[in-house]
C-alpha cells in the first residue's frame, strides 16, 4: 500500500538530514505507529505520505515513496488527497471553514461530487461515527477533542483508504481520547490503512500491528504489534517512549486542605456569563504541586486567568500570607507559562528575553539556567530560528527567573517524549520547593509523576484530592 524506498529528506539548506534512507513497507489494512523522541522525524515521515513533502515543504528530497502505485513526488497533492486523509496536531489550525457542516462537505466539494450525494454522505458519516451532536456548530464553540473528531470525520466523508494522523491527542482530554480510540478501531475493522505518529501510546496499544521506532531520522527497528506490547518497561524508558499503560496513577483522597499560605476564599469564577464554579474555598502550602483538571471546555483556563490576575473574579478573595490580593495585584504574585509559548516570547534574541522581567536578574543566573536547558549556544539567536522544543525551554527558563511565589503551567508537556517530560518534571519539582505550583493538564502520566494534589473543575464546583502513591 505504502512503500518508502531509500527516502532521504532535509529541510531547507540547513544540511541536517531530517530523514535518512528510510525503507519501509506498509501493507493494506495495517495500523502502523511511528514513534521515537521529539523531533526524531516522525512528523516528517507522515508528510512524505500525504505529499506535503515535497510539494508543500521544500527541501532536499531523494529516494521515493509510492502510495497505491503512485509515486508521491510526481503526483499532485489534490490527487493524493483522494487516497490519503490527514489529521494534524493542532486542532486550531486544521479547519478551513468556521462551521462544522462546511468542514464536513469541504473535501467532497473539492472532488466535485454531486450535491445530493454529498448531503446523503454527511448524514451517513454523522450516523456511522455518532457525531450528530457536532452538526451545525461553530468551530470556535467546539472543544479540542471535538475538533479532532470533526477533523477525522471530515476525512472519513471523502472515504480514503489511508489515514495519516500526526499527534492527534496532543491537546485533548480523556473523553476525547476514548472517542478517538473508538473511531480508530472502527476504521481498522473497515480495513483502512492507518499511520499514526504519537507520543501518548497507552490508548492505541491494542490497535498497533506494526511499530516503527525512528531515531535521528532513521528507522532503528520495526516491531510487530506483539513484540512492541511485550517490551519491558526499562527498554521503553531507554527508547524515550511514554507509558504503554496508565499504571502510575495515584490513589486519590478527597481533602479539605484548609490551611496554607495561599487561601482561596469563597471564590466564584464566570466567563462570558457562564458560571465556571462558585464559592470554592481551599488552601495550598509551599511545596504543593496541584494538577488543575477538568474536561476540555470546563473552564480551567478561566480559573488560571483569574488566579494570576488576568481576569476579575466574580466574587470571593484570594489571600496570600495573610494579605488579600485584589485582581491586578495578583500579577506580582503569579507567573503563568502558557500552552502556546510563542505568545510569550517578545525579544529579538534569547538573551534579551530576560531583560523584560520585572526586575533585573544576575547575568550568571541567566547563564546558569540557559546552560541547564541546553540553550546557551543559542543566546544571541532570534526566537524565530529556534525549534518548537527550544522555544518551550526558553519560556520555562524565563518563568524560572521570574521567581514568583505562585507558578502556573498550562499543559507543559504536550508533544514531549519521555525524556523531555522527565526533564520538565524535575525542573518544576525543583521550583516547587519554596513555591506553590499549579499545572493544568490532561496528561495523566505527568500527573502521576509530578503532582501532589489534584483539583477538578466539574459541574460548577471544585473538588480537591490528595494524591498518594499506591
Amino acid at each position: 500500500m505504502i512503500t518508502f524506498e531509500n527516502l532521504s529528506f532535509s529541510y531547507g539548506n540547513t544540511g541536517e538530514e531530517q530523514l535518512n534512507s528510510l525503507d519501509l513497507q506498509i501493507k493494506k489494512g495495517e495500523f502502523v505507529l511511528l514513534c521515537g523522541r521529539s523531533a526524531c522525524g516522525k512528523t516528517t515521515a507522515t508528510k512524505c505520505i500525504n505529499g506535503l513533502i515535497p510539494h508543500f515543504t521544500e527541501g532536499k528530497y531523494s529516494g521515493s515513496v509510492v502510495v497505491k502505485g503512485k509515486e508521491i513526488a510526481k503526483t499532485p497533492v489534490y490527487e493524493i488527497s483522494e487516497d490519503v486523509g490527514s489529521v494534524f496536531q493542532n486542532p486550531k489550525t486544521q479547519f478551513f471553514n468556521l462551521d462544522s457542516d462546511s468542514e464536513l462537505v469541504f473535501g467532497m466539494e473539492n472532488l466535485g461530487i454531486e450535491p445530493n450525494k454529498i448531503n446523503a454522505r454527511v448524514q451517513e458519516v454523522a450516523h456511522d461515527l455518532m457525531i450528530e451532536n457536532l452538526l451545525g456548530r461553530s468551530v470556535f464553540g467546539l472543544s479540542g477533542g471535538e475538533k479532532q473528531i470533526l477533523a477525522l470525520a471530515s476525512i472519513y466523508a471523502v472515504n480514503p483508504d489511508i489515514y495519516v494522523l500526526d499527534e492527534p491527542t496532543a491537546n485533548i482530554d480523556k473523553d476525547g481520547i476514548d472517542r478517538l480510540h473508538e473511531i480508530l478501531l472502527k476504521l481498522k475493522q473497515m480495513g483502512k490503512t492507518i499511520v499514526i505518529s504519537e507520543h501518548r501510546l497507552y490508548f492505541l496499544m491494542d490497535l498497533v500491528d506494526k511499530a516503527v521506532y525512528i531515531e535521528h531520522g532513521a528507522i532503528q527497528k520495526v516491531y510487530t504489534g506483539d513484540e512492541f506490547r511485550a517490551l519491558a518497561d526499562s527498554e521503553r524508558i531507554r527508547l524515550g517512549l511514554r507509558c504503554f499503560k496508565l499504571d502510575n496513577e495515584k490513589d486519590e483522597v478527597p481533602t479539605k486542605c484548609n490551611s496554607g499560605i495561599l487561601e482561596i476564599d469563597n471564590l466564584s469564577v464566570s466567563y462570558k456569563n457562564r458560571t465556571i464554579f462558585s464559592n470554592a474555598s481551599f488552601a495550598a502550602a509551599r511545596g504543593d504541586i496541584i494538577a488543575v483538571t477538568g474536561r476540555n471546555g470546563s473552564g480551567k483556563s478561566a480559573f488560571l486567568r483569574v488566579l494570576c490576575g488576568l481576569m476579575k473574579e466574580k466574587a470571593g478573595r484570594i489571600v496570600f500570607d495573610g494579605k488579600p490580593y485584589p485582581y491586578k495585584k495578583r500579577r506580582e504574585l503569579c507567573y503563568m507559562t502558557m500552552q502556546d509559548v510563542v505568545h510569550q516570547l517578545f525579544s529579538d534574541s534569547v538573551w534579551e528575553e530576560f531583560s523584560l522581567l520585572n526586575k533585573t536578574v544576575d547575568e550568571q543566573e541567566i547563564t546558569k539556567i540557559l546552560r541547564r536547558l541546553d540553550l546557551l549556544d543559542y543566546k544571541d539567536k532570534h526566537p524565530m530560528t529556534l525549534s518548537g522544543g527550544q522555544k518551550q525551554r526558553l519560556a520555562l527558563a524565563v518563568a524560572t527567573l521570574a521567581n514568583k511565589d505562585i507558578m502556573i503551567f498550562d499543559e507543559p508537556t504536550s508533544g514531549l517524549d519521555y525524556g523531555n517530560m522527565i526533564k520538565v518534571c524535575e525542573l518544576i519539582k525543583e521550583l516547587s520547593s519554596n513555591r506553590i505550583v499549579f499545572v493544568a493538564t490532561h496528561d495523566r502520566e505527568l500527573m502521576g509523576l509530578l503532582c501532589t494534589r489534584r483539583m477538578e473543575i466539574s459541574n460548577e464546583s471544585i473538588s480537591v484530592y490528595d494524591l498518594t502513591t499506591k
Partner: protein
Amino acid sequence: MGTMKKGILVLDPRTKILLLLGINIYVFTNSYVWAEIIVMAALIILLLLCGVYKAALKSAVTYIALLAIKYFLLPFCPEIILTSLNIVVITFRKLLPCVTLATLLVQTTPIRLLMHALQRWHLPQTVIIPLAITVRYFPTLREEQQAISDAMKLRNVHGVFQKLEYIYVPLMLSASTTADELSQAITARGIDNPRPKTCAVSMRFHIQDYVLCFVAIVLLIIAFVLL
C-alpha cells in the same frame, strides 16, 4: 447544509460582494451628507434583517458619534485642531460603510461559499485561494491577540508604545506558523483540485438578491454618471 442563517433575510454571497463594491464607490464619490445618511441607515436596517445585531448597533453608534463630532464639536474648535481632526473624522466616516458591510459578509457567509461565489465569476484559483486564507486568518488573529495581550500583562509590559514595540515578535512567530499550518491543512484536503467544484448548498438568487443588486447598480450609476 452549511449556511449560517441568523436573521429573517438570507442573501447570496454574490449580492453581498456586489453591494460592498456599489456602496463603497458611491460613498467615496458622493459629497452630500444627507445621501450618505440614507445609505447608512438602509445598511443598518439590512444588517438587522440579516440578524447581525451587535455589528449593526456598533456601526450606528459610531456613525452618529462621528456626525456629532463633525457638526456639533468641530465648529467650536480652534483652527489648528479643526483641520487635523476634520480629516480623521471624515476618513473614518467614509470607511465605516465598508467596515459595516464587510462585517455582514464575514459573519453571515461561510468561507467556502465565498469561494464558490468567486468561482462562479471565473476568478482564477491563484486569486481565490490566498484571498480565502486571508479571510480565514482574521478570527484566529483575534484569538492570538488576546493571548499575547495576556502574556504582556504577566511580563509587565505597559503603555501603548511599549505594547506596540513588543507585539511584533510574538505576532510574527505565531502568524507564520498559523498561516503555514492552515495552508498545509487545506492543501491536504485537495483545495487546488482543478476539477470544477460542486456546492452542497444551492446558490440561487432570490427576490431580495435581485432587489439589492439593482440597488447596488443604481448606486454605481449615480456614482459614475451623475456625480
